[in-house]
């Protein structure tokens, strides 16, 4: 028996209900995807070579862009903070100001955004092309779980690579600040690094570490999910890649704020 048509006045409410159901459905599938990936991570046999390949793909190949952006971020911080701190006669605090900004906030966030742009988009496109050319179906019919073969190694590689990339971003950024503060403006190197040791403690480093771990999961989760659910050919791959980068970037910033409020 078919349902009688709705009164015109009720149709927007029906549309809202349908849209809400679609959102809830998508969120459910998104969460279930991560659940399956976590299950695949802990299911032997472990794909060590696949993992190393993914670490190379996500981490090592992003190294140059991380070093470059880290250095210039540190230099910009050094320049702006020196000019600001000098006004208050506090230029001695340039070292800790640069280090704390990088270690707690800018390092994890900017490194994650850079890796998203370089590796996350490539990950979505690669998996998306595998989907539309039936390579994922081929894995499935060979009784090889695409979750275990493609998704799980990417997420573990994100977990390992992001903190390492962030650490390198921080170190290079601190030296970028050193170049500007010490070599350009003549602050003493002892002051720059000495005050840093006084003001930066392990809690700051752990805050940055936990952020980078979370971003590693978020980026690889979003990018593999978007690639895995591509449809409509090349146009679909392009759309999924854009969505993956935008969604990852938004989630990085939202999660950064959330972690900033809960971590010490």
């Amino acid at each position, binding site marked *: 028996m078919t349902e009688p048509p709705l009164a015109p006045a009720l149709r927007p409410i029906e549309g809202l209900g349908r849209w809400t159901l679609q959102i809830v459905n998508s969120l459910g599938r998104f969460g279930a995807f991560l659940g399956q990936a976590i299950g695949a991570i802990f299911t032997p046999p472990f794909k060590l070579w696949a993992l190393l390949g993914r670490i190379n793909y996500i981490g090592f190949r992003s190294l140059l862009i991380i070093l470059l952006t880290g250095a210039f971020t540190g230099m910009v911080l050094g320049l702006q903070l020196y000019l600001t701190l000098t006004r208050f006669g506090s230029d001695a605090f340039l070292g800790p100001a640069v280090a704390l900004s990088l270690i707690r906030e800018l390092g994890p966030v900017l490194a994650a955004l850079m890796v998203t742009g370089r590796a996350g988009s490539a990950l979505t496109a690669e998996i998306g092309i*595998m989907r539309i050319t039936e390579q994922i179906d*081929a894995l*499935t*019919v*060979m*009784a*090889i779980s695409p979750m275990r073969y493609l998704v799980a190694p990417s997420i573990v590689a994100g977990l390992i690579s992001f903190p390492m990339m962030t650490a390198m971003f921080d170190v290079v950024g601190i030296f970028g600040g050193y170049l500007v503060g010490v070599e350009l403006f003549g602050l003493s190197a002892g002051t720059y690094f000495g005050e840093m040791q006084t003001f930066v403690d392990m809690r700051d480093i752990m805050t940055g570490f936990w952020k980078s771990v979370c971003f590693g999961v978020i980026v690889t989760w979003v990018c593999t999910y978007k690639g895995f659910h591509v449809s409509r050919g090349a146009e679909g791959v392009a759309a999924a890649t854009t969505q993956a980068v935008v969604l990852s970037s938004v989630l990085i910033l939202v999660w950064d704020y959330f972690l900033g409020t809960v971590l010490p």
Partner: protein
Amino acid sequence: MIRVEGLRKSFHGQAVLRGVDLEVPTGSITVIIGRSGGGKSVFLKHLIGLLRPDSGRIEVGGVDLAVLRGRALDEVRRRYGVVFQGGALFDSMSCRENVAFPLREKTRLARAEIAARVDTSLERVGLAGIGDKYPEEVSGGMRKRVAIARALVTEPEIVFFDEPTTGLDPVLVNTIHRLIQELHRRSRFTAVMVSHEIPEVFELADRIGMLHEGRIVEIGPPDAIQHSQNPVVRQFIRGEPDSEPH
């Protein structure tokens, strides 16, 4: 033996399969023909467990594939080889690595044994010597043959071919069909092929089934299909255009 009973599938309310019944005898080559968009590939995806039916049974060796999940489904798939329409070769691997892949991932064979079996498989499809090339470096016909070598390297009991000759010239179509015939004679696998290569499939198939509007409207040996009185079958094998309304 593969037995399909009352297989139904709809997408977004539109029925694609409306109760497919089919029996595929062990060791035979059964070809499913039908017009483009008629549900042939959807039907094949049900047989290989990539889609789940809305209702109906798909029995493979007495097990209903439609209700299997996870490892139980993978156990059935271990008996399968599948040649996809576009080949579905892994483009990050060479042709040799593609053929070796299922052996490397799903068996405990030694490297030397895997290498020997890959060489034999490539030789059987006439591609000895191109193993180190990547899929994008070889022709469409070669890619199909690599895909066939990959599907057969594990010596499966059942092999599915999804339009394996689409996009090839008539010479290559016959070459691929002869290759499949020769490999079938050698290994005696059960083959299910989806194709619309008329009349070439009449020489290849033991049985031909016509899928039309979501049902098998006729099935039988090639001779019987060629002389069918069913107007839908006759129109399809003669390639007659649809009659336009006046």
